[in-house]
């Protein structure tokens, strides 16, 4: 299934022009007093909810509202076969699509 991402410079472009850069993890934890465990938790551990558990939303729920459900993800993408910009966008793992209005920010 192919789909498009919104590059902040070029606009909507085919997913194949982009390289995935991982989930936005927020700022790196402050170094003083940081335990190894806290550090590695920040590096690798994620919560990735599936179909809205109690709400009973299914994989067919492609019409997620703008801003998305709590389980959409902020991610880094690189427009390597385009303008070369790194940017963040919001994507829904249940639909594999960019959330409408979630992209295009540097």
């Amino acid at each position, binding site marked *: 299934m192919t789909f498009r991402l919104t590059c902040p410079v070029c606009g909507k472009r085919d997913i194949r022009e982009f390289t995935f850069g991982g989930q936005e993890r927020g700022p790196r934890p402050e170094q003083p007093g940081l335990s190894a465990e806290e550090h590695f938790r920040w590096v690798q551990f994620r919560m990735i909810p*599936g179909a809205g558990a109690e709400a009973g939303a299914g994989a067919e729920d492609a019409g997620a509202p703008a801003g998305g459900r709590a389980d959409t993800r902020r991610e880094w993408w690189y427009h390597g076969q385009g303008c070369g910009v790194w940017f963040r966008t919001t994507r829904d793992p249940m639909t594999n699509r960019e959330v409408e209005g979630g992209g295009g920010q540097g």
Partner: protein
Amino acid sequence: MNRLKLRRLWSPTPLKRHYDTIIIGGGVHGLATAYCLARTHGIRDVAVLESQYIGFGGSGRNTAIVRANQRTPENVRFYAEGLKLWRVLTDELDFNLMFFNCGNLNLGHSEAAMNAFRLAANTHSFLGVKSEVLDPQQCAEAIPGLDISDRPAFPIHGGLFHPPGGIVRHDAVVWGLAKGAAAHGVHIHQGCEVRGIDTDGARVAGVRTSLGRVGCNRLGIMAGGYSTAVAAMLGIELPIHPLTIQAMVTLPLKPFLHHVFSSGAYHVYANQTLKGEIATGAHMDPQVNYTTDATAYYLKHQAEALVELMPALRRVRFMRIWAGLADMTPDMAPILEGNLGYDGLYLDAGWGYFGFKSGPVAGKYMAEYMATGERPEMIRAFQLKRFLENRYSGETAAVMKYGHWD
């Protein structure tokens, strides 16, 4: 015609309000664990809850390859025992799992790959697992039609042949284990979706399902690619990324391919099924998603890679393409845990590419873990805490790894 009368492999059972042990996920891992709990450990008050039908997920979507030529000793030992279980289970379950012991050939396309093969072959022989390094001529003898000339972009430098591996009919494994588990008293509930997990703060207490609440003393999360979603119901974070992995089959051909072969450089593995189709796959989309969408561009990639390695396949048509979920960990080794955050909560996940070949042996040791509460020595290396201690498994150095991080 009477002889063809349909007989159920197991009978439907009512959903009780409480079970001693509940397993989330009716795939190879969940069913194997339930089977071993009931048969080996006498724990028969067990329910397997499956949101769709048994074998709907990765258990029915993998390319059915089994092997034990992993990189690290803890993984080789584990998968080597798993490989021996197919024959044992075929007898025990009285169900033909169609284990085709055809052997696996990994192709190397650089001298670095050949060195990795030599290292791996030494690890394997040290642990009593058969593996041998082949030169290009021997590869061509093993796989007719393989282009060992210097024409391909990445010419073949040699291979690593692993005779004990092969392919197993994955549906038969699911059905056989379900039959065996049910015969020992396990309840299998299909169409029963888990939507929440109850605890009393310290211990698991039960699950909330589409068919109502069910209590339990022990709970096993064995939901394959959906394990992260189930763990999230308890707010548990895991170092696992569910990614789609695609596979496809060509139209059936006369038998000509007598081994599984794979190439890390071309990002492809292939075997000929007993029906004659070339089953092939390997591609993962890099971004986390729970869809099982297939992509046109991967169909093209796969055709190009296969034809480059084996030009005679040109013009053979693909018949079907599908995708499933792989639960990828950062070090390509699984996570087998007990009392994870809550007493009585067990996790069998993070198998990535290797969920099918590990199913029965993981079930054996998870059943032992759940029955005794003691972590078996065999799975000691697969603890979650290794990711918090920066002690990753060395499995990413395996010669046949295919991830997008290659």
